[in-house]
């Protein structure tokens, strides 16, 4: 990784793969992020300009932070508290948890993840009580950090 300051333009981060492909990320002074990809031997680079929000999404895909589950994953951030990122994730219940109550599963104790809602037959139950028993077809909505959600999916739900 090469980092260089380009006065009046921004900061450039550049990586060259062993094949000779180049990727450069340039944080422009305008606040936008330019993403360059130059394949080895190609005449011209492909370039896109991203907003800070879009760039973060691309970034979290690249770091593998998003879970490889079919269902949606939402990240919420606040302009007031810039370092606070809440990941809300929707997981289908699996055979490992069906028939158990939220209290029995002790998800928060084991992984730090909190269940904030359960969607059952099209109806959402927000802040479900600990004694609630999960049924087949439920969707659980959880919040936590990327790593915690990943641990929850792996250890509790048994999703690889």
């Amino acid at each position, binding site marked *: 990784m090469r980092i*260089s*300051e380009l*006065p*009046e333009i921004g900061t450039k981060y*550049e990586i060259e793969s062993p094949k000779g492909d180049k990727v450069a990320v*340039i944080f422009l002074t305008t606040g936008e992020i330019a993403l*360059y990809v130059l394949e080895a031997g190609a*005449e*011209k680079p492909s*370039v896109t300009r991203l907003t800070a929000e879009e760039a973060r999404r691309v970034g979290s895909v690249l770091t593998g932070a998003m879970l490889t589950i079919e269902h949606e994953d939402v990240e919420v951030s606040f302009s007031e508290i810039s370092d606070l990122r809440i990941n809300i994730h929707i997981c289908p219940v699996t055979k490992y948890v069906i028939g158990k109550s939220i209290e029995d599963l002790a998800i928060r104790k084991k992984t730090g993840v909190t269940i904030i809602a359960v969607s059952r037959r099209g109806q959402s139950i927000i802040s479900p009580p600990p004694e609630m028993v999960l049924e087949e077809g439920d969707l659980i909505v959880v919040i936590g950090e990327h790593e915690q959600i990943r641990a929850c999916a792996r250890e509790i739900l048994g999703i690889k």
Partner: protein
Amino acid sequence: MTFLLDLAIVTVSCLALGLASKYLRQAAIPAYIIAGIILGKSGFDFITSYEFVEWLGKIGVILLMFYIGHEFNFKGIKEPGRVFAGCTDFFVNFIAGFSLGLVIGLSLLEAFILASAVYISSSAIVISSLIENKRLIYPEAETVVWLMVFEDIILAILLVVLTSIMSGSLAMIPVSLATTLLFIVFILVLIGRLSNFISPLFERDDEIPILLIFALIFGFSALAPRLLDISLQALAPLLGISLQFHISEVIVAFFLGSALSGVKSFRKLFGATISFKNLFLTIFFFSFGMLFQFQFETLSSAYFVLALTALITISILGKFVSGALIGKRLHGSLETGLRVGAYTTPRGEFSIVLLAVVIGMETGNYELLLSLVVAYVIILSLIGSFFAKHGDMIGKAIMAGINKLL
């Protein structure tokens, strides 16, 4: 309410021509100058108070220099070959401009001013063209950006040298440089000392931060030259000689900008000053065009056309030669160097600013030089943007030509 009418004329005409130039994907600087020429003294003479518009324009120059001082980043000088690149760019193009100035019959001083205008590329055009034409991933983009930084340093030095020549004699140059240097140290130390006090003021949400910044800019650039004058007079009996020395306001603004870049909380506010800079600098280009004494006989004379053509040819060639040398040394490739040459061809704001600061806009003695540089900047900003846009094709075409010849 005539001032309002003047403001309306300036902003509406610049908006219209500026939009047209953006639409045609051309540099906007010549559009603003042309708007000034059409509506000003040489054209329809629509402006009521030339002085008023000129003042506003001068604020633009001060803000531009403040901006450059702030963005000025010297760290890059440590990378290999950088000093070589900067010096090659300077010597090749400055000498080319200077010799041509003498050949076409300018005085030594005029040739010096012309050479400075020829040397300095337009950072505004060059940098926006690098971004828009998607060149930032190539290593030569860094070299080009560095050249722009190096040119800023040289611009500051040229301004000091030229203003001291204009106000005194050649013998004053070392004194001027030394005094300016002392002065910079003074500003840097002062800002450093004050930073604990001013830093929290920049973080407020009301009008205080923007007031503070303009108070600093105007305060320093107005008071500094006077302060220097007084202290030089006070020193005169001690030294036994009386020193006449003038430090340019724009130089003060430049160093104030670079001193403030060290104050962290200023960063947020900097965006606001950029907006002011953009507005007033546009008015400056207009005011430059509006005061320009356009004389058709001079401009259409065979001598003038010949001189201008030679100047443009030499300027383009100069950048390609310096670019080729730089490319060969830094990137090991002649073709890359030719691209550097193409990217740095546009001339613009600095050539005009230099002229305005050094000789003012309304002096009769420099008529030929003024006309020459105005026509030069208008043409080269257009040709230059074209070159910068098609740098890779031009580089390839020249390489093909060279290979055929060999």
